């Protein structure tokens, strides 16, 4: 299999990659909010950070795919 095609299956699941990072970090933010009584700020940070990490993953996979 050519090196370029290796990330094909990774590309298939890019959507879940973003959703998983947003979901996980916003959930952790929500839990931290309840712990420190800072609602809703840590959850907002979690959502933004999750989206950023998701996009970063997508960027890395895309760069690898189209290199």
């Amino acid at each position, binding site marked *: 299999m050519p090196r370029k095609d290796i990330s094909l*299956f*990774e590309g*298939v*699941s890019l959507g*879940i990659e973003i959703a998983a*990072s947003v979901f996980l970090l916003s959930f952790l933010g929500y839990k931290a909010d309840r712990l420190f009584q800072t609602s809703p700020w840590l959850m907002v940070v979690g959502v933004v950070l999750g989206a950023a990490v998701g996009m970063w993953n997508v960027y890395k996979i895309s760069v690898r795919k189209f290199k």
Partner: protein
Amino acid sequence: MNIFSHLSDRIIVPLKIAGIDISITNEIIVMWVAIFFIILFFYFGSKKTSIIPNRFQNLVEMYVLTLWENIEPIVQSRAWLPFFCGLFSLILFCNLLGGIPGIVPPTVNINFTATLALCIFLITQIVGIKQNGIKKYFLSFVPLDVPFWILIFIVPMEILSQLIRPFSLSIRLFANIFAGHAVTLTIIGLIFVFKSYWVLPGSLIGHVFISAFEVFVAFIQAFIFTFLSAFYIGSSLNLEEH
């Protein structure tokens, strides 16, 4: 009646050791049955091997070689073949057993998929550190040719993306298999909701199509899980290439 109760695990043999609940559930038994079938599959496939293979030997050879042709360019070591072959077979056989009516595959349980993903995560880290040394491995999280102020953002994101990998790996397999079974149950459930013979043909035809699609999903999801695991392990083994 909640039709999704069919997808929940049921305790068959209650067991508790040192306050930890390790009861044998129906899903664990399905997993054992899957392991039994895997052993049978490979035992009879490699029992009487010959240069001109019979049909079953041909099937097993094709199964292993197809998997290995896809995994080999990533991990670049033949030593990993049994591990990935076992991982793929376990997920595939569990998924396929779920196609039998009344059987709940362990892959609809997030605990099973999360355990597999966590094992992959730990293996990735251990193998990466062992192969490259702790310093070189953790330095690989720092991209080259990037201004220092950008590193403040990139390095935490790189570490977070590593930590999110097992989560996305487990969610992907669980969600796909669970969704397939949920759709099947919903389509069958329509018969009981409408209580009409007119719904029956539509439900049955829909069920046949979804079940056929589920077989395809069983293969694809087993392959994606194995492929991504190989990719993660391969990435930590061969740092200079990524």
